[in-house]
């Protein structure tokens, strides 16, 4: 099923951009607080050329990536928790309790213990991303159609093969669902923790622009953040569809009738 370029979506985007430009020029809002799209784009180009925007973005993505990598340690834990009801009864209540703590604010206590640098930010991202990954992986494992497991057991599959060839692929939809939730959260939390006692990164640059009355740069940063978030999400979608090729095929054939 081939899909051509999304003309309607693009047209709508352009309409919104046009509305912004017109509204700003007509000074419907205070002009110094709501600059025209053209001046924002000019500032974006200037910031990119000067290197401030790319450097800040790279720093934020680095902290975000490091935190996500740390959170990937939740994948094996999630698989284990999905398979072992005893484990979940033990750690479950604590996990549920910790889960309600606002992740971005975790950067503040982390600063007291881990210092002022990247460590508290990475910790905050790790904290935020861990729960969706852990819980979705666990749900993914629990949702494996019993048919798969029974068939494998009947075929007397070795434990390692059971894990890598049956459980992991079958739990993959759940894992990716967790990753798709964790990724935008990681990005947001990385930026917010930079605003609480940071020195670099795109979130800190945003706060600093507001403080220095650099309003066009503020909007330019917001555009960069939106673009980056969109690209990251799309990237994950592409990875997911290639990893789960078997899943979409199987679903379209089997639907609910299997397992």
């Amino acid at each position: 099923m081939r899909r051509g370029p999304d003309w309607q979506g693009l047209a709508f985007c352009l309409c919104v951009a046009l509305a912004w430009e017109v509204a700003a020029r007509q000074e419907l809002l205070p002009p110094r607080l709501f600059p025209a799209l053209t001046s924002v784009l000019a500032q974006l180009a200037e910031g990119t050329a000067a290197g401030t925007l790319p450097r800040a973005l790279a720093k934020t993505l680095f902290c975000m990536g490091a935190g996500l990598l740390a959170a990937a340690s939740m994948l094996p834990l999630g698989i284990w928790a999905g398979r072992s009801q005893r484990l979940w009864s033990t750690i479950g209540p604590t996990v549920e309790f910790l889960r309600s703590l606002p992740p971005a604010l975790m950067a503040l206590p982390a600063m007291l213990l881990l210092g002022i640098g990247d460590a508290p930010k990475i910790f905050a991202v790790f904290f935020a991303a861990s729960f969706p990954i852990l819980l979705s992986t666990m749900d993914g494992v629990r949702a494996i159609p019993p048919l798969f497991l029974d068939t494998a057991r009947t075929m007397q599959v070795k434990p390692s093969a059971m894990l890598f060839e049956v459980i992991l692929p079958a739990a993959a939809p759940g894992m990716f669902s967790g990753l798709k939730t964790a990724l935008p959260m990681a990005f947001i939390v990385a930026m917010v923790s930079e605003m609480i006692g940071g020195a670099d990164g795109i979130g800190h640059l945003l706060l600093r622009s507001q403080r220095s009355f650099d309003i066009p740069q503020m909007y330019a940063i917001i555009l960069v953040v939106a673009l980056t978030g969109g690209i990251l999400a799309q990237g994950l979608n592409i990875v997911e569809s290639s990893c789960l090729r078997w899943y979409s095929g199987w679903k379209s054939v089997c639907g609910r009738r299997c397992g």
Partner: protein
Amino acid sequence: MLKYFVASLVLLCSITSARAESIRIGYIPIADCLQLYVAEELGYFKAQGLVVDKTPLSGGSLIAMAVEGGELDVGWSNTASLAIAQDRGFDFAILSPGAFEQDPDRREHSLLVAKNSPIRTVADLKGKTVGINALGNINEIAVAALAAQNGLSVKQMRLVEIPFPQMEAALASGHVDAVLTLEPFVTIARGRGATRVLEPAALKPFGKRMLIAAWFAKRSWLDRHKAAAAAFALAMRKASAYIEKNPAQARELLTRHTKLSLALAQQITLPLFAQKVEDSDVQGLIDQAARFGYIKKAFPAQRLNLPAAQP
């Protein structure tokens, strides 16, 4: 019956129409806004028919945005932010001076290090980490200027942002080597005895006397509300005079409007509340800001429309 009704209606109208002009003021609930608390408690606003609607906010830039957007009429901000706003094309004007720093004993800002730190002079900060509360603003300009005075470039230090209340802990844990902090945190740290003062007058590169903060409004608002602006400025002037003549009462008043305890309010160094601001009180900051690139170009202090003195 009707006679009484009409009479009371007329009375009510005359009371409410009696010169009651309302202004919305944004401020931060700290000691530096003392004039506002004094003017309100001692009725200086009411005496001029001014009704004041005050809104506490957490930062000067938020106040500036609210004033620019028309949500507030008058705001409180540090002079560096006003200079930066001026540089970026915002059109704010100073209505009345706020707090000043002055040698030798009216200095609020200090550079602190841990008590057993090997750092003895500002020059020793080369290659070290310094904590300030907000990057790109008055404290960073001060550090840049202090560094230059001691033969260093601020680029040879690492500057990080730490909220004021966390500075002492950051020093104690060794995550930073020095912090630029202000009252009441300087006095609090002195009381706990774990820190040492590296530089007792961290803002001295800006001059022997300097205006730390001021009450400002948009120039367009000023032009349309000349009477209210003059009334506000007069009330602030009277408040400044009161504070300088009655420091004990002023300190006690602080405890009712900020979170300071009475003991702390009596110990902290209060800023100076002078009646009149001169160009030299502001020009030093503008020039240093331009010198280190925080604003694009220096401009004459008069452009911030510093108010003339009243006899």
